[in-house]
């Protein structure tokens, strides 16, 4: 299929390009960028006047609940949600049922995702078997099956000896280990420790749960040389530790979830279970530090932390409610809102959800390493076309994700995806974009 996208504002964060022009796509690749020769004969022309033409989004933190929820068609609905959100590449956590610790499971998941012909799916393999924190998985086999890194998801690796060996082993082969820094013992609470949790009578997760874990991880990185991606920082003190580690030259990168970037514990309101998230929403000074750190690059990436949760699992008292919320369809808008609030250029804003997450994945992307998250002639045609000026109100029932829980219900947000193209074919088109 040959597609011509005409007269859109082409924004490519990696190259700094920001100019109106045309994009020609053929055989899944971008064949011309900016000006397209007159002899290009498209099957399809998309009028992109008034739209931004950006690289497809790369989301480093999602859960699709497969394996485990095949009977509910979870993979179909959540991959459709990704396409509707302009997300063309997504990384999913290994805490499925069963856990992604066997190459066969990873191959099956990759196969199922490919057969949907939607976005690219990149699973993280389990760092330890069953995520139990005891024995290492077959990392080389899992990598061959398609894993882009290894993680413990929310299952803490309590045994520091095992974690040390896991990092040593991973670093032998250059695999990246993805860890959410949280001390297992101090991390039991349901809200951020602080005056609000104390007032509401909710058990709190203290900031030191994050900083103690970061200190441990950094010592292990110093000793092993392993490359670590730190998932979903939540505190000002945590950000400061990451800043120092990067200044020291440690091979670490870090991300922040969009809820932590926009909300605080005060948003829990009257025990709103939609605000039950991990990591918990912290205080305003933490949120401000996370926003500043994303702007100055201490935090590399913004993630949706898309975690579908059943309505029944949310309709419970706050502490009993399952943590998580839908997110794929809100990532672009919440990135744009952060960018507008903090005076970032559109290219810099988009970098946090395109080129920067692609850089974290790096060589793990294989043949797509040089073009995912960016717009390159000859590179893969993963694009997101959106109307930056269109505001919309979040109605959970209008989302494609099966999960209706979102802390942003009722929010008016900027930026509406009009068309998502994955490997040269339209994976999503809003009604008004169809010509």
């Amino acid at each position, binding site marked *: 299929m040959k597609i011509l996208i005409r007269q859109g504002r082409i924004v490519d964060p990696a190259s700094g390009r920001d100019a109106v022009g045309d994009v020609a796509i053929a055989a899944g690749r971008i064949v011309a960028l900016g000006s397209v020769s007159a002899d290009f004969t498209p099957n399809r022309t998309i009028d992109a006047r008034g739209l931004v033409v950006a690289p497809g989004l790369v989301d480093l933190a999602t859960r699709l609940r497969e394996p485990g929820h095949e009977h509910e068609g979870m993979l179909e609905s959540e991959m459709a949600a990704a396409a509707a959100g302009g997300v063309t590449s997504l990384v999913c956590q290994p805490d499925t049922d069963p856990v992604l610790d066997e190459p066969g499971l990873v191959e099956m998941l990759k196969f199922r995702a490919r057969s949907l012909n939607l976005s690219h799916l990149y699973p993280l393999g389990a760092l330890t078997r069953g995520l139990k924190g005891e024995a290492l998985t077959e990392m080389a086999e899992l990598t061959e099956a398609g894993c882009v890194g290894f993680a413990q998801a929310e299952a803490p690796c309590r045994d520091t000896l095992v974690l040390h060996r896991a990092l040593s082993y991973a670093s032998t082969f250059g695999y990246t280990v993805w860890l959410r820094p949280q001390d297992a013992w101090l991390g039991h609470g349901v809200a951020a420790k*602080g005056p609000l949790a104390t007032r509401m*009578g*909710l058990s709190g997760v203290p900031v030191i749960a994050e900083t103690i874990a970061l200190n441990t991880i950094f010592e292990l990185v110093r000793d092993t040389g392993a490359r670590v991606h730190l998932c979903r920082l939540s505190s000002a003190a945590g950000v400061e530790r990451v800043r120092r580690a990067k200044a020291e030259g440690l091979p670490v990168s870090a991300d922040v979830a969009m809820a932590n970037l926009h909300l605080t514990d005060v948003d829990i*309101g009257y025990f709103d279970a939609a605000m039950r998230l991990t990591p918990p929403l912290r205080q305003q000074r933490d949120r401000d530090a996370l926003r500043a750190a994303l702007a100055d690059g201490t935090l590399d990436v913004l993630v949706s932390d898309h975690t579908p949760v059943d309505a029944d699992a949310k309709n419970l*008292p706050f502490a009993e409610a399952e943590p998580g919320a839908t997110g794929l369809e809100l990532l672009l808008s919440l990135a744009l809102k952060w960018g507008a609030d903090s005076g970032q250029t559109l290219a810099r804003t988009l970098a946090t959800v395109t080129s920067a997450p692609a850089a974290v994945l790096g060589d793990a992307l294989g043949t797509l390493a040089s073009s995912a998250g960016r717009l390159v002639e000859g590179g893969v045609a993963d694009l997101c076309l959106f109307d930056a000026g269109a505001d919309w109100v979040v109605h959970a029932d209008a989302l494609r994700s099966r999960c209706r829980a979102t802390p942003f219900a009722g929010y008016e947000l900027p930026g509406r995806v009009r068309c998502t193209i994955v490997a040269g074919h339209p994976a999503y088109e809003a009604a008004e974009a169809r010509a």
Partner: protein
Amino acid sequence: MLAQRNPQLNAHGELIHLLSIEGLPRAVLTQILDTAGSFLSVNDREVKKVPLLRGKSVFNLFFENSTRTRTTFEIAAKRLSADVINLDIARSSTAKGESLLDTIANLSAMHADMFVVRHGESGAPYLIAKHCAPHVHVVNAGDGRHAHPTQGLLDMYTIRHYKKDFSGLTVAIVGDIVHSRVARSDIHALTTLGVPEIRAVGPKTLVPGDLREMGVRVCHDMVEGIRGADVIIMLRLQNERMSGALLPSAGEFFKNYGLTPEKLALAKPDAIVMHPGPINRGVEIDSAVADGRQSVILPQVTFGIAVRMAVMSIIAGNNA
């Protein structure tokens, strides 16, 4: 963030549920205390009933066992002529796997007019108030560590009864404050009613510094905490917290923070001693104090019935 209306109040600012004392205007608290005063005489009459809730059904939903609190609500509802149904949920439907909201939907279908809810998780009554039919009223009878508003109100009634005025008082709350819904409700009520000095007294494991933001003075030293106090509220120390990582032993707790006649002598000579019950003699309070002339622990129980009658009659009279 998006603004939300306090779910306890209707659009006219009237009380339709009692979920927490936090956020309630002083006038509402005073109205409840004044109404309770008028009900006290009912309790002394030969026929202890008024017809304010005649024909109404009050369901006591206790997801956590508490015979004492449930009984006082039952007496209060019966004295208002309501029909009372006690459901010991801890041992029935939820044990069979029924969800909280399914339980509520089923009971609503039985034409309940009021739910009195005790639940082990903070905020559970908010979830129930949000999902029950508009004509149903919810009274929080204790949720997790969050709130026990009728206990807070009966404590205020007791203080007002003995001290007349809140404006010059020093109130010390002693013991396991971090896990106490009573302490939280007392603190909100005392600050709303204008008490100038509220002290939270106990070791750092039970009295976190974050409490300062609720408007209290945090004291880790018992002598500093009760010196010159007009009112001392002792909290119950739960058995499971008496030894472990929070406290080494009940004996050591009593040595440091137990209320003995010697320590009570540091308070004002006319200080009153309160306790939400049931008391642990020799753990948080010495028997000589619990049974002494300054103890108002039993009058608290009597006032509690009048306060619960006041709360139920007021919310039943207001529409969502």
